[in-house]
């Protein structure tokens, strides 16, 4: 048998048929849906007069539009309320399981799939959301799709997809003190660029990724889309199996043993080749911050913003970015006063992220002028945080733990950053206006967000780690 990559093994096992000079018909195991990108798909089915083909392979939740305070009250914004209500109606009509607002399993769609054991190695998983790549942390082919494709999967449990090219990103070595999974992926994006992965599916390999917890691996895979890649994956191993064992929807008993045996085969064979490969050294990575308006505009916190090279095609884009951010070329961000901090999102809204934030703020005080949104990714994360007493650590330091949702990640609900304000954010996108019109986003890890929250400035978290 020829040597195969992890990606090829899973892809090939899901091809229903191949079309000559065209795409493959790819079978989808799990389909996650939310309120924003599903209504038009349900409407499409209705117009065609067809049912959902495999309702039991779909799970729905409400996350993008939901408020993160007083979730027991009706949503104030009329359009948001309608969108969430439409999801409830559609799920009811089409027989789809919904973990909506107020449900104990509700949360950001990419947080709840893994924590409930719905996400399992070897699967194909899609969702009308580009951060579906998160699930790749388990050795799954997971990617975001548009609404027309949501409708296709609802109607047939399949998609028409051309097989992407393959890329492997190897990072060897150990991450330094204060350097986290978030810094690792921000570094990779700054090197590979925001379009470097376009057309590819990525496998992350090497000891730096192996050494990460499942939470850390999810943070890495989550941002694969920020490389332009459709998705990214990490081969399942003991860390994966330990995380999954006993979760509600994971296989149990005899099935579990068989599953682990099968999942253990999900590795890239020795000798398999990739269309493109990168090698980096973990020792080169510092805590990272972004300075511009794409996730690729990132740098070590002690570095300076780049100079503008007149005449280059990218000069205009870089100048526009720096102007939007009110930063100069060759400027250090250290000491830059900030008024907002956001901890949460499908990138860093898991329990480990809250722990990392709490570790830094424990025994310190929030800077007076800082407004902080601390938002768990799901009801389960919220319950766990309370069980561990993190809510009390936060309260003592002057922070409030909110209720689960996408929150200030995308300015679609009540949580927004005002125009012109800097926000050190653990989310995944620093695009213009992403956190609110005119908002200036600096992407960083939860630990770096904590350092900013207690000092009121962009601060190297390593200085607080003595």
């Amino acid at each position: 048998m020829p040597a195969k990559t992890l990606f090829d093994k899973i892809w090939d096992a899901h091809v229903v048929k191949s079309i000559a000079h065209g795409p493959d018909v790819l079978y989808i195991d799990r389909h996650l849906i939310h309120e924003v990108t599903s209504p038009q798909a349900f409407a499409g089915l209705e117009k065609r007069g067809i049912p959902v083909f495999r309702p039991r392979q779909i799970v729905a939740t409400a996350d993008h539009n939901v408020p993160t305070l007083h979730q027991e009250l009706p949503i104030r914004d009329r359009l948001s309320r309608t969108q969430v209500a439409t999801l409830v109606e559609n799920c009811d009509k089409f027989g789809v399981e919904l973990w909506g607002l107020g449900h104990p399993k509700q949360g950001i769609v990419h947080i709840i799939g893994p924590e409930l054991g719905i996400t399992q190695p070897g699967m194909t998983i899609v969702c009308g959301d580009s951060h579906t790549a998160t699930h790749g942390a388990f050795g799954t082919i997971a990617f975001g799709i548009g609404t027309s494709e949501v409708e296709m999967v609802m109607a047939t449990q399949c998609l028409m997809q051309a097989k992407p090219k393959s890329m492997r990103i190897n990072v060897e070595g150990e991450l330094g003190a204060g350097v986290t999974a978030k810094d690792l992926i921000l570094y990779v994006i700054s090197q590979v660029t925001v379009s470097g992965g376009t057309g590819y599916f990525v496998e992350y390999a090497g000891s730096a990724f192996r050494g990460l917890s499942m939470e850390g691996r999810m943070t890495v895979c989550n941002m694969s889309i920020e490389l332009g890649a459709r998705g990214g994956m990490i081969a399942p191993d003991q860390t994966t199996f330990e995380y999954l064992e006993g979760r509600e929807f994971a296989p149990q008993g005899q099935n579990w043993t068989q599953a682990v045996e099968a999942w253990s085969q999900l590795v890239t064979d020795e000798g398999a080749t990739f269309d493109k490969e990168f090698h980096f050294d973990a020792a080169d990575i510092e805590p990272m911050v972004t300075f511009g308006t794409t996730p690729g505009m990132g740098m070590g916190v002690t570095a300076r913003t780049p100079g503008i090279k007149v005449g280059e095609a990218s000069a205009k884009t870089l100048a526009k970015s720096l102007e939007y951010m009110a930063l100069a070329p060759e400027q250090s961000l250290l000491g830059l006063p900030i008024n907002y901090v956001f901890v949460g999102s499908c990138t860093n809204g898991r329990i480990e992220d809250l722990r990392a934030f709490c570790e830094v703020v424990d025994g310190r005080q929030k800077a007076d002028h800082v407004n902080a949104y601390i938002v768990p990714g799901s009801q389960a994360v919220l319950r766990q945080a309370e069980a561990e007493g993190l809510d009390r650590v936060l309260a003592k330091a002057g922070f409030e733990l909110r209720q689960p949702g996408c929150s200030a990640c995308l300015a679609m609900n009540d949580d927004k950053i005002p125009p012109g304000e800097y926000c050190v954010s653990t989310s995944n996108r620093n695009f213009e206006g992403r956190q609110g019109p005119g908002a200036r986003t600096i992407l960083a890890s939860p630990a770096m967000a904590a350092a900013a929250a207690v000092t009121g400035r962009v601060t190297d978290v390593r200085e607080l780690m003595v």
Partner: protein
Amino acid sequence: MKKLQIVHSPAVPINIQDIDTDQIIPARFLKATDRVGFGDNLFRDWRYDGQGRAVENFALNDPDYSGEILVAGRNFGCGSSREHAAWAIYDYGFKAVVSSFFADIFKGNALNNGLVPVQVSEGFLQEIFAAIAANPSTELRIDLREKSITLPLTGTAEHFELSDYKQECLINGYDDIDYLLNVRGEIEAFESQRASSFVA
């Protein structure tokens, strides 16, 4: 989907790289439950200032520019998977977007809505921008049967990539979903044959 063979018109230039879907249609406008009307908010925050006044030097507000073709810098449509971005561009009246590089999900979404992503070389893209800068009514001609794009003014042409399958879909107005519904029998056969396997 509407049938499409040729797009021949002047173009609207936005010479910025890495234009993400949050710029094309900001998240706060994603609250609709149908597919129409998104064109009004296309490039909302570049087109209008905080007070809702039109930003004069932005291409969509510039009366010099018009047409069914949008020309944009490298890596167009990166970021969020929102199909609303393709809907907004199409709803505004564009039938094709020309760039030297497209983000994957945007490209797929565009094709599923009869909006043609035309990927040209960086050199040709710069030539197009220069020609439009010299004369805003410069026309472009995109021919789906030949998979070609021409700058009739100079006669420069380039071939662009499009799978034969997608070419047929666009020219005939077919959707992927029509195809998939037709092979449901094969999908069911696939399901029953793999029902017991863990490595899905």
